[in-house]
């Protein structure tokens, strides 16, 4: 089984974002980068499939030189080899999907996994676009995956429940939290990762559909509100939590 996992190198979730003077980038100083958290589920699922059925797991990342750190992390978890598709700065998701699809096609991967979204630009379209370009089936926001021969049975998270879908290989799956428990790399894996190959090539980006005009910070949060001081405030609190904050 030939499995491809697409991963991205993103600012750590705890980063305090500051926008650079050009309004096209964030200030890099003091920002540490991590493997996109949703991609960890994709890698774990790929490794589990490989452990069960054999085959190879190739990790593909589009980005700059530093994206290699993220590729190495995936290699340390157990992936076999990496491919860096070199890009510069902001890349439109659809043109990026084209570059990923090219690489996946040349690799002949029949199972493609990626995170449901990258937590930097949060577009949530790369998996779908890549599937469309490749002519593969596609299951997004996947929380359970079973592959038997060429048959694919997947569960998707939908509002208030789950949807069970069936498709067949080749397929692109976008992973959601809950799909599995990603493993931590073992020291052995970390040491082996440095001996695993990472191929580098220029990304064959497709037509650009959107360009970045400006990055902006969200407006400052509203200050807290005190609804009441005793139990009589509870119904109103519950209503606000449900209808306004939408957390319950």
């Amino acid at each position, binding site marked *: 089984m030939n499995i491809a996992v697409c991963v991205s190198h993103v600012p*750590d979730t*705890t*980063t*305090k974002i500051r926008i650079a003077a050009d309004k096209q980038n964030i200030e890099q100083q*003091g*920002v*540490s980068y991590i493997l996109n958290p949703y991609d960890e589920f994709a890698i774990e699922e790929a490794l589990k499939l490989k452990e069960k059925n054999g085959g190879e797991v190739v990790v593909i990342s589009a980005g700059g030189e530093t994206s290699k750190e993220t590729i*190495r*992390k995936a290699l*340390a978890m157990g992936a076999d080899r990496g491919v860096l598709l070199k890009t510069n700065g902001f890349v439109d998701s659809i043109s990026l999907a084209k570059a990923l699809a090219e690489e996946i096609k040349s690799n002949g991967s029949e199972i493609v996994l990626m995170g449901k979204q990258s937590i930097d630009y949060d577009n949530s379209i790369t998996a779908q676009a890549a599937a469309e370009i490749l002519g593969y089936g596609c299951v997004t926001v996947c929380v359970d995956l079973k592959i038997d021969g060429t048959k694919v049975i997947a569960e998707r998270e939908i509002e208030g429940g789950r949807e069970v879908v069936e498709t067949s290989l080749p397929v692109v799956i976008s992973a959601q939290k809950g799909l599995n428990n990603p493993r*931590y*790399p*073992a*020291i*052995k894996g*970390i*040491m082996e*990762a*440095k001996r695993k190959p990472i191929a580098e090539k220029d990304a064959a980006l497709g037509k650009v559909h959107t360009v970045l005009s400006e990055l902006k910070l969200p407006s400052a949060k509203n200050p807290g509100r005190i609804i009441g001081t005793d139990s009589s405030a509870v119904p109103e609190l519950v209503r606000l939590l449900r209808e306004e904050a939408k957390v319950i």
Partner: protein
Amino acid sequence: MIEESVESRFIIGFTEEQKVIRDTIKDYADHVIRPKVMEFDEAQEFPLAILKELGEMGFMGILIPEQYGGSGLGYVEYALIIEELAKVDPSIALSVAAHNGLCTNHLYLFGNEEQREKYLPDLASGRVIGAWGLTEPFSGSDAAAMKTTAVKESGAWMVNGSKNFITHGTYADTSVILAITNKEKGKKGISAFIAGRNYDGYSASKKENKLGMRASDTAQLSFMNLRLPEENLLGNEGEGFIQAMKVLEGGRISIAALSCGLAQGALDASLKYSSERVQFGKSINSFQGIQFKLADMETNINAARLLTYQAAVAKDNGQPIHDIAPKAKLFASEIAEKAASEAVQIFGGYGFTKDYPVEKFYRDVKLLTIGEGTSEVQRIVIARNLAQE
């Protein structure tokens, strides 16, 4: 983000792999250990499942070569790992240090090929937890004054006595213990043995109820006509004490690293809290009285880390560390004690409660100026080295 700044102001450059190892253990500590720290502490629960998981990841055989199932790393990596664990939970850091640096390392350094092959794969993978017994009820700093004896009797060693304050006493299947084999010869009459729970006459009792490091198991071992096969002697008869001193020398690096991590954990918590807590209409970190505490903590940690990694690098280069390791252990543990105390001060009344992490640092830190040679003993060693120069 803190990591980045630590990196840039630190003069030893770590390799890419060292950074990945550090980030991995940091990630694990933050996500798996941190949510349970107080639970383990309150219940005095030994987190066996976590140690097993760390074992699967290679963190229970850090210094052991791959041929014996270890990770084949050096003291720099060892220190980085202990530091990261200590930032989150010093008791787990202590357990990992005692397992790796004392028991497992003693077996590796002084075991013969057969002993290494028999014991190291289980220890280095964390399948078996190890303990190391030197201290006794009547001998601590003066370790050579031990009373436990081992007498050769028809092809076996008959051991009688007890050991006190033994980390993993209750949980260890394999232990290395020190006993007198020839009273006349003093220090040169002490030998090291491989023992464990599976031998009759070996028992663990009196789990200590401790001020800090409560998730780390500390118990008494008793030996009543404990019969150990002849082949359980480690190295030569009479070399046990010298072996133990060598093991402790490396152990000092790990306690120094543990101290750096604990101090950094206290500083990180203080930085966060002091930026959030408002008094007199300002966040308390705008007061110079608080800023100076933070500046001192930071400076001390930086200095302690330099000493610690100087010792670790020297050890990895095969240079003597009898001089530098005690300095690192002494300095790092004492600045950590100061840092933990100042952290509680910065948190005010909240620092005195179990709702914030500094209260635990304040309790845990006290072990660091006591275990593996007290501060007084470190000063004795440093002064003795000075006199010999």
